[in-house]
């Protein structure tokens, strides 16, 4: 009971003085996922930012790359009511009749201007808009709902994406608000941002999950579209200032060779990191590529064979790296 009274008075004080004068910042996200149990410690809520400076061929969230709202389709659930066709002013929705009587739909992405009129008229959820502009406070409102779960499990909020630091003010606002509510914060980043940005968000971060994809600048640029120099610099800057989990997406034919792995492990050995994760390549995102009207360039790629995983385990062991984990989906 006394706890309750205390909580009550606590609320009271907060509401009277806590009306923040800071302007509310808005940004663009494409999802807030509660009960995320693979994005940092404990039970977390992951906020997926929309927009990314990298465009990795294996990206499992292709909708995260373009910063603008996009039309995403899943015609599996379509009920063929044709309301979308009527609504489309650009005639971008194409209906073709197929042999087994069910019409096949597709979007002419060149004509489509992403006005989302079709989404408003879709009865089945086959057409959706991905990406919405929300305020930091609205995000926090949703994140705060699960506070009891964070407290018990050591969880909190994870900013993911896309690249959260592509919207630095928005990310900063969310992090500040989170820390004000004593919520554990994690930033899941590609590392591709200005050092100043890292500097401003650093005081509000409990943990950074930092992606390391490749050590060779040329190959890095070829597969992700950007040089890894800035990324490496940022990693060096963060080292020792905040808890870091390194995350290495293991992509067959890109960074799963022994030489690259050894280089990454050497890097990990030099840094002061809490954990090292290998995330083996998966194709879960493939459906979203066609939904967005894009082609998946890696469709022939096999998943990482068990032998290679064993090699990595062996390499880690020989380098006395114990705090690693391989997340096999």
């Amino acid at each position, binding site marked *: 009971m006394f706890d309750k009274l205390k909580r009550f008075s606590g609320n009271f004080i907060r509401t009277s003085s806590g009306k923040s004068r800071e302007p509310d910042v808005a940004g663009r996200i494409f999802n807030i996922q509660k009960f995320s149990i693979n994005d940092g410690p404990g039970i977390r809520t992951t906020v997926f930012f929309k927009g990314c400076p990298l465009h990795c061929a294996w990206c499992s969230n292709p909708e995260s790359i373009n910063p603008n709202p996009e039309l995403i389709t899943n015609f599996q*659930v379509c009920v063929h009511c044709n309301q979308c066709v009527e609504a489309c002013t650009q005639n971008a929705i194409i209906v073709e009749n197929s042999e087994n009587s069910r019409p096949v739909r597709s979007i002419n992405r060149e004509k489509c201007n992403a006005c989302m009129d079709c989404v408003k008229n879709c009865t089945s*959820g086959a057409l959706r808009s991905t990406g919405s502009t929300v305020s930091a406070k609205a995000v926090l409102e949703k994140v705060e709902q*699960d506070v009891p779960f964070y407290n018990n499990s050591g969880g909190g909020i994870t900013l993911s994406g896309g690249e959260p630091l592509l919207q630095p003010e928005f990310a900063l606002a969310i992090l500040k608000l989170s820390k004000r509510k004593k919520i554990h914060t994690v930033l899941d980043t590609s590392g591709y941002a200005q050092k100043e940005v890292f500097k401003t968000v650093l005081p509000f971060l409990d943990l950074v999950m930092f992606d390391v994809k490749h050590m060779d600048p040329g190959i890095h640029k070829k597969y992700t579209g950007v040089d890894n120099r800035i990324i490496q610099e940022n990693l060096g800057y963060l080292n020792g200032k905040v808890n870091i989990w390194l995350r290495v997406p293991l992509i067959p034919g890109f960074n799963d060779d022994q030489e690259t792995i050894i280089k990454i492990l050497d890097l990990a050995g030099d840094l002061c990191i809490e954990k090292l*994760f290998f995330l083996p390549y998966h194709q879960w995102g493939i459906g979203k590529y066609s939904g967005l009207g894009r082609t998946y360039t890696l469709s022939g790629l096999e998943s990482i064979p068990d032998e290679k995983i064993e090699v990595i385990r062996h390499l880690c062991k020989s380098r006395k790296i114990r705090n690693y984990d391989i997340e096999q989906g």
Partner: protein
Amino acid sequence: MSVGAQSLNVARTPTQRLNEDRIYKIVQLREAEEPSVHEPAKQTLNPDVKICLERAELVTASYRQTEGEPWIIRRARALAHLLDNMTIYILDNELIVGNYASTPDSLPTYPEFSHMWLEKGLDNEFKHTLDEEGKKRLKEINRYWVNHDVEHVLYEVVPDELKNHLHWNGVVTGPWFWPLGHMVPNYQDRVFPLGIKGMLDEVDHYRSKISETDPEYREKLDFYEACEISARAVTAWILRYAKLAQEKAARANDARLKADFLKVAGVCSNIAENPPQNFHEALQAFWFFHLLTTQITWSSVGLGQRFDQLFYSYYRKDKEAGRLTYEGAVELFEHLWIKLDDLGQINPTESCYIQVGGTKFQNVTIGGTDEFGNDASNELSFACVDATMNVRTLQPALCLRYHDKIDPKLVDKSIDCIVSGMGMPSIFNDKAAIKYLLSLSSSVFKEFEPDRVTLDMLGVKVSGSTQVLSRSGRMARRLVEKALPVAVKEKLDNTLRELPYFLLTDGGKTGAFIRSGLKKIGMDLDRLLVIPRSWASVACVGAGFPNGLVIQGTLTTIITAGVLNFLKCLEYVLYQGVDPATGNQLGIRTPDPRTFQSYDEFLAAFLEQLKHQINMTGKIFEIADRLYAERTPRPLESLLMNTPVIRGKDATRKGDFADSEIFTMGPVNAADSLTAVKKLVFDDKSVSMDELINACLADWEEYEDLHRKCLDVPKFGNDNDYADQVLNQMYIKANRAVSGINNHLGVPFRLEATLAGGYFIGGISCGATPDGRKKGETVADGQLSPMHGMDMNGPTAVLKSCSKVDPAQSWNQLCNQKIQPGFMKGKNREMFTQYLKTWASFNNWHIQFNCQDAEALKDAQLHPEKHKNLVVRVAGYSAHFVDLTPGLQKDIIRRTEQDLGSFRSC
């Protein structure tokens, strides 16, 4: 699948062999091919299951001979005749013995309740259960019961205006012709310490005390005589098993089998009259009486025992003496589990709506606290879980009483069992349960008061302290109401409502200080908690004393539970009490909803409809319960209960606490519909009531726009205050509305408990509803489970939503959560434990985790529109199952199958 296949190759244990050779007697309830309001579902029976007419024949023969004698004597004599003459058998490898039908593959029937349904069903669903010869025998038996079964009499005495409600009409029904007859014998204080001999001595003792001047002298004498007849018959019956085991031992060639039979013979002859002396004997004694009370005398359901407490003293004694090991105890539990799982019954289809699939809903409770509030789990708690994991039987259903001080290892073990795909144990929160029991205390303990003897026997003096507590609470609340502004008032009001509970359970210094102070002035609050702390779950999540929580040796009313379709009542509001499917005026005529000015008017009309239905049901309840109490008394069960022998009255008569419940069907959909009406029609005013009604009538045809709007309205289960509060208020108000309606024992009805599987009937019988549900579509299972596919924010949001519904005020508790098995494995396991802890801190009552099985995923592949909320959780990834390509979906399905292994599911 791989797990199941492997286990076949490994050498099977005797229990596994016994289990696999069994014929599975679960009856399935399926949606009928052409479902109608009156016949929404059909049952299908395993074609290998037969009907055994032996019980019916023997009982009928006895009833024919005893015409004219008092009902209670006839009942006892019928039991004695049955036990003396029924076929008994012992299978090889059995260590716990006792059967109820003449062959292992058959089920008995109970013509004294109702007989015609079976004969009618012989042309349809029960076609294969009897051969031509059997059909002739059945006709012969039924000839006697034409004018004698309870159904026949009930039809005669129920007034015409209620006859519409005797059978399922889309909105209410009850097991009028097939009573559930929940009861929980007191093994702890009666069966085990006294033995049959001790109970008979007690009968003699109290019989010698009644005087001829007693106005009920005759009835009491009859009662004691009936008790004696039954008890002696049971002794003789147990001795028959001892003899049979001896004979089998003499004939057995295998040395191990011979030893087994001799062991069984010894156990049976020891407990035929005397109290059990060791673990094996206690288990066997329990089984005999459980079998007698739930299957032989009556086809009732439920169990309601804390096995780890009940048998622990025997286990400890045996273990200390070196006679028993942990593994030995697990094996004996396995034998008992197989026996419990083997019980079954063939019901009239209509009864299956309540008692789905003929399961017996036998709940074994483990964990929990002792009377001082400390952790009570012990080795036997683990043995229960181990036994379930070894034999993988669906019955008994394990229930874990979770509390703050629980042994983390037991939680771990339970998670093991859940992850293995069993979905058991379901988890109950002690905090909520005890709070609930205390909040009930006034009505419950009042019910005890006329019979001080009960309380004295339990060694508890409660009335004084509860009165003081509730009175002080009331006074303080009144003060608050006058003096303070609304917002502060609500906060304080909540705190004050919690005050008694806080005083009783606070483990900190403040609580201890206040308790010790009160103790000095003669109010021992700890003793108030002794009863609540001993609770166990009886059946499904509920049903029993009170609301699923049971004190040993009490009985609920015979009918026990009716079913009320909330969603139908909501439909009645739309159509002024007329069922749109049939055009009949079954509800009360409430005003035209088009004229309603506010949501409150709509809600009031809804409550009016509910109240009307419960009134009607209540009347039938009363008539039926009295009739059964008169015609089918339970002398044997009376021996096992706390007070009947002392009072000289049968257990079915007033005395012990007995409450009546109304199971709710589709309450979550009703609440979602209320939310839709509230938001669209009254708050946003974006839709007119007329439009909404027309859309529902048209099953959303031509109203796609409105349909989408309705689906977009917030739904329960998403941690959305708007929707969650509508549900909470609906429950609280509905319970207040019916609180004035009492059963014939003077205990108010409660809209509560849980309908385990029959919920889909409610959906079939309803047209389209404002929550966006289509005509005939199923409704949400459970009282706190969100509508399928409507919980879009993940499992944490569901728990948060549930936490907003106070079980002590709404009596509602059942929440099923589907989770993917990966959530509980590997590094996620610790997280899951914390998840559970958070759940407990919310004061939610119950949760059952069902692993997302491959079938559900396959269904999601076929019907993606119904499973939009299925999230795939991979690091740094955001997507739903339905968005995956078919190949990847298949991959997930394959892996789920691997994770879960295979087991029999109903």
